[in-house]
Structures are given as structure tokens and as C-alpha cells.
């Protein structure tokens, strides 16, 4: 192919060493061959595949981060709700003494209170139960006499762990035990944690049973 000199002035990006033009530029007007197009297309395709791989990886990372953040938020909200209910348990609007922990074990707790002071704990929100359901990988919460609803789900590899302590900071009961009435009445502090199966704490809080007397 022969290069044709451009006499009407060349574009500024053309080579500068051609003295026969108005700007000292030349124009490469030969176009592109099929081979060049194929090579360029192949290059773009390879780059696109690589870019798509990067994007897929980035999207997966974002998705994973979002899921992790969402689960952590759910865990903290659950902890706040459990802590608030433990703090409130045993409250009587009439100022009467009331044992707030009706049942207690390492992965479940039943709490009662009497905010309206009518002497019973059968009204709305006067009886609250938290139960960890390992088969559904979920924490369930029930109020009143209704069935337990899923409160937090997707707890893969996690378990709820409740530890009970007396006024001297001594742990009451063992991991597998169900607390009896005396032990429940002695509980002054409850540590609530979400732990992995190897015992690593993912999220946790410590809450005092304020209405215990």
C-alpha cells in the first residue's frame, strides 16, 4: 500500500516529520485491515472477559459484605430487644414484688412483668419468651400466649448463649442446665451472646435484672 500525502493540512495528532504538508503532518489514510479488526476485537473480548471477572468478584464481595452487615445489624437489634426485655422483667406497676424470670436455660428464657399492675401477667407484652431454634437457625420470640415467631433468621453457624450470674458475679448453673426457681431468683446479671460453634463471640451484651429484689 502506498501512503498518500495530505496537502490540505493534517490533524494535529498525525506524525510531525512530513515536510510536504501545511502543518508538517501526514495522514495515514490506508484504513484498517480485516486482520487488525480481528486482533482488536479479540483483544477487547479478552479484556471484557477479564473485566467481567473483576466485576463479578467485586459484586460478590459487596453482596457478602452486605449480608454480613445485615446479619450483624439484626444481631445487635435482637440483643437490644433482649436486653430491654430483661431489664423490664419483674416490673409491677403496683410496686409488687414479682419474680421476672419464669424459665431460664442456656438458649432460652421466659420473662414476665406486670406493667399495668393488675396482679397478673397475662396481658399483652407481659410474658415474653426467647428461644433459639437450631434446626431453623433462627431466634424466635413469643409474646403473651401466642406462638413463637422468627425474630432473627439466617444464623448459620451461630447459637444463642445465655449465662446467668448472681449478685456476687458467680455464674449460676452450667451450660446445659435448666435453672431452678432458687437459681432464677438469684440471677442479677445475664450475659447474652451470639457465638459461633467454636465459642467465639460474634455479638454480645451484659444486662442487669433491675427489678430483682
Amino acid at each position, binding site marked *: 500500500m502506498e501512503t498518500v500525502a495530505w496537502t490540505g493540512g493534517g490533524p494535529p495528532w*498525525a*506524525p510531525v*516529520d*512530513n515536510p510536504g504538508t501545511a502543518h508538517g503532518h501526514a495522514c*495515514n489514510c490506508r484504513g484498517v485491515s480485516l486482520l487488525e479488526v480481528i486482533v*482488536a476485537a479479540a*483483544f*477487547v473480548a479478552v*479484556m*471484557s472477559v477479564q*473485566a467481567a471477572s*473483576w*466485576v463479578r468478584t*467485586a*459484586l460478590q464481595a*459487596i453482596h457478602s*459484605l*452486605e449480608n454480613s*452487615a445485615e446479619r450483624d*445489624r439484626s444481631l*445487635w437489634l435482637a440483643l437490644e430487644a433482649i436486653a*430491654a426485655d430483661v*431489664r*423490664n422483667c*419483674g*416490673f*409491677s*406497676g*403496683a*410496686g*409488687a414484688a414479682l419474680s421476672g424470670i419464669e424459665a431460664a436455660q442456656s438458649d432460652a428464657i421466659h420473662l414476665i*412483668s406486670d*406493667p399495668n399492675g393488675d396482679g397478673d401477667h397475662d396481658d399483652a407484652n407481659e410474658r415474653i419468651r426467647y428461644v433459639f431454634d437450631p434446626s431453623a437457625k433462627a431466634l424466635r420470640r413469643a409474646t403473651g400466649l401466642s406462638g413463637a415467631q422468627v425474630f432473627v433468621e439466617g444464623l448459620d453457624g451461630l447459637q444463642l448463649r445465655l449465662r446467668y450470674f448472681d449478685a456476687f458475679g458467680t455464674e449460676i448453673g452450667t451450660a446445659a442446665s435448666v435453672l431452678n426457681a432458687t437459681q432464677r431468683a438469684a440471677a442479677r446479671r445475664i450475659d447474652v451472646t451470639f457465638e459461633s460453634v467454636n465459642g467465639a463471640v460474634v455479638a454480645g451484651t451484659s444486662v442487669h435484672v*433491675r*427489678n430483682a429484689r
Partner: protein
Amino acid sequence: MKPERQRGVALVSALALIALMLPLASQVQLQAKLEALIAGNSRHQSQAFYSAESGVALALETLASGIDAAALDAGPDGVDGTGDDGRFPFPPGHANEFPTGDYEFEVGVRHLGDGQIELVSRAVGPRNIARTVRAVVELPTALGAPPEVLGWQEIR
């Protein structure tokens, strides 16, 4: 020697990559902003809760220092039948902020009978985040004796 004309796709590739990465970056930024907002709200919730608790604690301290039970009904101005009746009569000059000026609490008081009162402390913080705590208290029978908290509840 005439140099070869420069050809290539570096600029186009770079622009394409940037165009692909831009939505991802904005998504990450949005997520980070959301997390910061949630964390901020959570902090304000906790602070407001402790501010409301401090209101109850201050009222208990005032009760322990000796206060006429009848004066509890008259509000801070000490006059029955005025608009501030039902508010706890803290002594003049008390602080109603805790832990900082961003969180203010107000304590209400109500007689329940049998020497018992109900204290309701409501604290408001930034973004109008509020928490309310209620305590049933037995009034001290002797001067200087501490009031007894019979019950404590957070109202939601």
C-alpha cells in the same frame, strides 16, 4: 525514520473499566453512609437512654435529700394549679442534661397512693431520638432515708 502511528485501546479500556467500577464504588459509598447513619442512631439511642436514667437518678437523689411529699404535686414553681404541675420539682439551677447538652431529660411525677410515686423520665437527643424510663418509688418515711425503687421499666 518515520514513527509508527500510535494505535491501541488503552484509553477506551480504561474508560470502560471506570464506567464499570463507578456503580460499584457508589454502592460501597452508599453502604458506608448507611452504616454510619445506623451507628449514629444507635449511639444516640444509648445516650438518650442513659440520659433518661440520669433523670430518675437525680430525682431519687433529690427525694433522698428531703422533700415534702405535698410539694411534689406543685411542680418546680411550687404553686398548685399552674402549668408545670406534674413535673418533678428539682431545686433551682439543676442540670437537666446528661451526658452533654445534646441530651435533655424531663422528669414527671405522679402519686400512686400508699406513699408511692411514679417517676417518668423522658430524654431527647439529636435527631429527636427519645427514650423514656419509668420507676415506681416508695417515698422515704424519715428525713435522709433513701427512697426505695420498687419497680423499673423502660417505656417503648
